[in-house]
């Protein structure tokens, strides 16, 4: 039998060569491109409130015809690690949005494509994927990423290689760290989120406060021990909370797992006199807290608030009883699927239905990436208008993103704010779960979040 190892190795080797031969060329399939000039996309994204003058357009000629060209969006996230529940729909959202744009004529006729790499939630994998992408393509125009850790680790590389990044991981270091500068956020940074929400809670304490609570708002920060989980507590947000009169009485961590046991964290928080819990996690984080609060019979003692990712349909996959979700408060920097009278939501809904995605993906990830791809598309168009397709580089897209300024993606589903050194939005709603799934009810309409960027 031992002699068989060589044939086995040989077969492995041949498979490898075969696969690399298959993988390498990546011939763009000739897609039937409508010969017409780009018709207006399904949702004409309304221009920015303050129109940015196109800076010195070389010569006023009509839009170029880029039929036959391909523009690639590089994309990496976690399909197999702890964040899989939320990134799966994110990826499908991006794919479907790109498909819809291509069907509507692409970008001046050029087809968009998405190249995806699974990082399993690991920073090392993200760096390896980054190396692979930049090795395959020496003119990467944009990258979309999700993890806070990944976004932080890649920020300096993006600056060096002059590639703009859109990140759904919203830790402040990724956008405003010393070596950052090319990373743009798909939501307000977590310190802004906690400040904004806690301000609301303090202002409305008489309505919100638990039965036995006093007049002081005492916060327990129960979260994951990861870059994401700890992302909301920075020097700036601590100072802001102190100014609000919010005392942080407990900082506990629990495992990044829907099977985590938060009993001890909750009881420690209770013993410390907390009456508000903030958790900075994906939806299964508040799910375990809400489950444990209920099974401990302590739900009535706390206001539970969390970051924007928590108020999502994926919450209901982990709640022992859907009713446990009621009362969760989070910032909500985008519209929701139930806002059916909004044309942007209608557009996303059409894409979702056209691709027959399962109901579980009808979540924030999908919606946000339809909006994210709209931002990328608009930035591409603006960059092409300014420098021409042949000069289209990551830097040009970066300039275009900045010129977009306070752009409202999909006509207002998401409100970017990329002007004047800001690289993350500063406007959000606050919603609270009232009643059954999807009843994400607005309790505070769009307004400015505090600006808690780190001061470097």
């Amino acid at each position, binding site marked *: 039998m031992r002699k068989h190892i060589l044939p086995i190795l040989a077969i492995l080797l041949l498979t490898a060569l075969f696969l690399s031969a298959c993988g390498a060329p990546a011939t763009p399939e000739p897609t039937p491109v409508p010969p017409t000039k780009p018709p207006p996309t399904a949702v004409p994204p309304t221009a920015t409130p303050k129109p940015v003058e196109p800076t010195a357009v070389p010569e006023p000629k009509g839009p170029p015809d880029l039929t036959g060209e391909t523009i690639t969006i590089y994309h990496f996230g976690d*399909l*197999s*690690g*702890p964040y*899989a*529940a939320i990134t*799966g729909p994110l990826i499908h959202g991006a794919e479907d949005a790109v498909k819809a744009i291509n069907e509507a004529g692409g970008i001046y006729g050029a087809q968009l494509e998405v190249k995806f790499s699974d990082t*399993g939630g690991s920073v090392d994998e993200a760096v390896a994927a980054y190396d692979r992408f930049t090795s395959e393509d020496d003119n990467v125009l944009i990258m979309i990423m999700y993890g806070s850790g990944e976004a932080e680790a890649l920020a300096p590389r993006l600056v060096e290689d002059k590639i703009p990044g859109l990140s759904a991981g919203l830790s402040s270091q990724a956008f405003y760290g010393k070596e950052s500068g090319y990373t743009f956020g798909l939501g307000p940074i977590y310190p802004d989120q906690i400040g904004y929400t806690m301000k609301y809670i303090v202002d409305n304490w008489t309505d919100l406060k638990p039965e036995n609570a006093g007049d002081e708002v005492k916060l327990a920060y129960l979260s994951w*021990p990861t870059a994401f989980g700890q992302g909301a507590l920075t020097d700036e947000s601590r100072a802001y909370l102190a100014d609000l009169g919010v005392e942080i009485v407990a*900082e*506990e*961590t629990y495992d*990044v*797992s*829907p*099977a*985590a*046991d938060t*009993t*001890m964290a909750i*009881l*420690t928080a209770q*013993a410390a006199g907390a009456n508000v819990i903030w958790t900075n996690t994906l939806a*299964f984080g508040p799910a*375990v807290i809400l*489950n*444990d609060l*209920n*099974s*401990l*019979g*302590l739900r009535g003692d706390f206001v539970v608030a969390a970051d924007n990712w928590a108020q999502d349909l994926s919450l209901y*996959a*982990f709640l*022992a*009883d859907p009713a446990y979700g009621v009362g969760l408060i989070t910032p909500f920097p985008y519209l929701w699927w139930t806002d059916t009278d909004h044309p942007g939501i209608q557009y996303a809904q059409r894409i979702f239905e056209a691709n027959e995605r399962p109901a579980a993906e009808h979540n924030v990830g999908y919606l946000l990436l339809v909006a994210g791809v709209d931002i990328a598309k608009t930035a591409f168009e603006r960059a092409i208008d300014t420098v021409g397709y042949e000069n289209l580089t990551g830097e040009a897209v970066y300039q275009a993103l900045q010129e977009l300024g306070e752009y409202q993606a999909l006509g207002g589903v998401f409100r970017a704010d990329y002007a004047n050194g800001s690289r993350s939005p500063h406007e959000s709603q606050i919603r609270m779960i009232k009643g059954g799934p999807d009843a994400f009810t607005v309790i505070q309409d769009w307004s400015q979040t505090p600006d808690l960027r780190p001061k470097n």
Partner: protein
Amino acid sequence: MNWQLLPQFTISGLLAGGPIALMALGLVLIFKSSYIFNFAQGQLLLLGTLLTWWLAVGLALPLWLAIVIALAASAVLGLLIERLTLRPMTGQPLLSIILMTLALGQFLQGMALLLFGGTQRNFPQMFSAANPYKIVTPFIYNERNIQIILKQNLVWSFVVAILGVVLIAAFFRFTRTGLAMRGASEDHELAQSIGLRINRIFGISWAMAGVVATVGGVLLATSSGLDLNISLLVLTAFPAVLLGGLESIPGVIVGGLIIGLSQGLVSASTVQFIRNSAEIMPYVVLMIVLLIRPEGLFGLKRIERI
């Protein structure tokens, strides 16, 4: 020390030791018969639990039937693993055998991810998530009696786990097969010479380990959900095994309870750094055991000759 939380955390720590003991039992079963320490036990647990989930949720079978089928399947899986991967390793050095179970663990983890995907799942509830048990203690803090709140699933998981361990211990004590297995664990060659079929005994112990792993996995998953990282939970059982003694079945209960208790006690500290150390307490205990009494509380001290 956070005195008001001490009674609570002592009790919930001890109760959490139940499932740890059950996971440790799976390891001891295999070690006792074949001197193999199975690093793939976590993946055995993972696959058994995923299978239960698939049968109960995917195929919508009643939960009890799903569990029965999954238990049978994991027994078969245990047998297969023993036959296909560890039988060929007989007589190989310790390193090769340790690595074989590690490699097996990686392989099964990849398989689970490929077959079931990486998303977290809601597992059918077996015990009510509401209505916790409340015990009023005689200890007074802030002029009120300290209350202990215990989640139902914590209590019942503990009961099931301890019952399982006692059942297996009884099997070893009172049945012929159990007796044969105990005999075989003393000396493989001697056992063979009096007519015990050593291969069959290895097979039985792996099958039992598979069953025990699945029971443990289902208990863990039903309390809050299932994801692929559940396989890592067995890592907290390794120290319990060493603490109890590698060959000792009663040892796993003691080991499991001590590990659980140690985690509960540090959680009652007022210093955050110490509270956070609950995560690594099993391994701190392990290092202490290794330095002071490597053979564990109930293990056998081995004498070596050249």
